């Protein structure tokens, strides 16, 4: 029988056979602000290399999605009841802080936004700030009758929240998705499994989940946000109809409007929901003075082009193609087709073989992208970090890989556009393996 002392000796002998390479120096940050910088950067890098799994929110499970990422990505909680979201995130070891986001006509206590956004790598201890709705804006909000049906539906759609069982539906519910009508039974309307087949509610559920990656929502919106220009859902008004509307709008991918109707005359009170209208739209061309909308527009049109939904791009007469901030070649606007974006670079780049293509990295990534104002971590910049086409009075928007598992999965496409909202340069940045 091996004794404990003998076991210690044997284990040490075994350990001595393990050749450990010297590690990178590990230093602690000096300031309170910087306290989080090193671990978060390191966490993002390491988690990309050793992905530890992602929290999964099962909409069919009872109660809010238990969030269990001990290392992983922040789950989408926009639209959740704030208390439920806080509890779920805290269970995952995250530190939750809140800020108030006044919204007229909205039930207080709903998550309107998160910082960081969903999909961001987090580790236990990461601070997540929830923007929580508040309707206490003295003198600014007009009277608005209870938005309970909307919030109940939101609980049902977004997160199996605390009020989901309160949502009541008529025996037949007319559901419109971009003008196409489907009739659901009341039971089907409240059963998420049926939504994929009759997908208006499923579409809006997806929309709400996407909001956590960037964007927000408003209830009873009045004028639509700039991202939603051109979207005017047909409102089947009728006598004494009560309408509750919610609009989600996101950078890059446009917006969606959910309208919920019920008959204001019927009994019991509140009467059940008998019509749901979901309308989605991509962003329309913005004005030159709205820089945010211009970025949204450029990004959206480029993605549509990359994914084959459109054959046109808003291009300047000349478009410069860059890889890793290094200029490679220029295209004439008239010559631009998808293969034209494939370029090679002498000496290679990011330990990948050419061609490198802004189109291909977008189209080939099943996880999609996020729009941002800077490149993703890990993205290798082989030339000095000067913006392409710097000095032409341009702006940039970055499309970044949404869900990279490791640095090798990381990509960024920088789109540089001019004052006429035309693309003047495209810069591909890839993460080094």
């Amino acid at each position, binding site marked *: *029988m*091996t*004794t*404990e002392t003998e*076991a*210690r000796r*044997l*284990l*040490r*002998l*075994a*350990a*001595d*056979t*393990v*050749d*450990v*390479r010297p*590690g990178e*120096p*590990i*230093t*602690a940050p000096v300031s309170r602000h910087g306290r*989080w910088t*090193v*671990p978060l950067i*390191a*966490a993002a890098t*390491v*988690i990309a*290399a*050793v*992905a*530890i*799994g992602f929290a999964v929110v099962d909409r069919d499970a009872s109660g809010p999605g238990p969030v269990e990422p*001990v*290392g992983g990505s922040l789950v989408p909680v926009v639209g959740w009841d704030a208390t439920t979201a806080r509890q779920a995130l805290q269970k995952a070891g995250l530190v939750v802080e809140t800020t108030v986001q006044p919204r007229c006509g909205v039930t207080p206590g709903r998550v309107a936004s998160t910082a960081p956004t969903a999909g961001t790598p987090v*580790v*236990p*201890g*990461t601070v997540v700030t929830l923007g929580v709705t508040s309707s206490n804006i003295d003198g600014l909000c007009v009277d608005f009758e209870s938005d309970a049906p909307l919030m109940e539906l939101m609980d049902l759609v977004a997160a199996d929240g605390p009020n989901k069982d309160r949502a009541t539906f008529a025996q037949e519910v007319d559901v419109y998705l971009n003008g196409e009508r489907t009739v659901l039974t009341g039971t089907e309307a409240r059963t998420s499994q049926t939504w994929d087949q009759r997908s208006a509610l499923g579409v809006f559920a997806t929309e709400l989940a996407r909001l956590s990656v960037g964007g927000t929502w408003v209830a009873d919106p009045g004028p639509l946000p700039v991202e939603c220009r051109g979207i005017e859902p047909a409102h089947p008004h009728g006598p004494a109809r009560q309408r509750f509307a919610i609009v989600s709008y996101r950078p890059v991918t446009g917006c969606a409007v959910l309208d919920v109707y019920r008959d204001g005359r019927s009994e019991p009170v509140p009467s059940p929901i008998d019509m749901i209208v979901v309308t989605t739209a991509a962003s329309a061309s913005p004005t030159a003075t709205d820089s945010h909308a211009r970025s949204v527009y450029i990004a959206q049109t480029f993605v549509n082009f990359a994914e084959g939904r459109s054959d046109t791009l808003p291009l300047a007469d000349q478009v410069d193609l860059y890889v890793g901030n290094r200029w490679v070649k220029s295209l004439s606007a008239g010559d631009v087709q998808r293969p034209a974006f494939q370029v090679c670079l002498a000496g290679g780049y990011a330990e990948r073989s050419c061609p490198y293509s802004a189109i291909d990295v977008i189209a080939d990534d099943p996880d999609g992208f996020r729009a941002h104002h800077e490149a993703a971590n890990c993205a290798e910049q082989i030339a000095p970090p000067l913006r392409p086409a710097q000095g032409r009075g341009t702006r940039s928007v970055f499309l970044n890989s949404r869900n990279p598992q490791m640095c090798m999965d990381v990509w960024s496409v920088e789109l540089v556009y001019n004052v006429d909202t035309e693309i003047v340069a495209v810069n591909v940045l890839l993460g080094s393996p």
Partner: protein
Amino acid sequence: MTVDFAEYAATRRKTLVRSAVLLGCTTDEAEDLVQVTLTKCFVHWRKVASAKRPDAYVYRVLVTALRDERARRWHGETPTATVPDETRLQTDATEGLAVRRALAALSKEHRDVLVLRFYSDLSERETARALGIPAGTVKSRTARALAALSVDRNIARST
């Protein structure tokens, strides 16, 4: 007195990597795992440093991270699940390598307790916390693991 993170990481990294290898990782995996572990610990470093035994906390994080990584990957324990063949055994005849083969031949449960108890120097209670099992289970597994080690043919041949 609290332990400085940088100092701790510098002095303990090697041992942590070796522990991870003995627990079944390749060296590359072990280095990644230790990096993840230290990163997680750094986020809570005040708590770790104020613990009676920072090592116990750190090993608990390491074991949890390893378990999560294993759960995520479909192929499980690739590095050491297979006992090396006879040919390699004869050419790598040092006692330390023989012990590694013996560890690889043990069940994961037995290997975990041996490594944490006798290489990482955790107490039974600390090992139990790290593995998320009762202390009594650690005790019984340790006894069985030591018994298995004593009859392992790799060690018997090398000594």
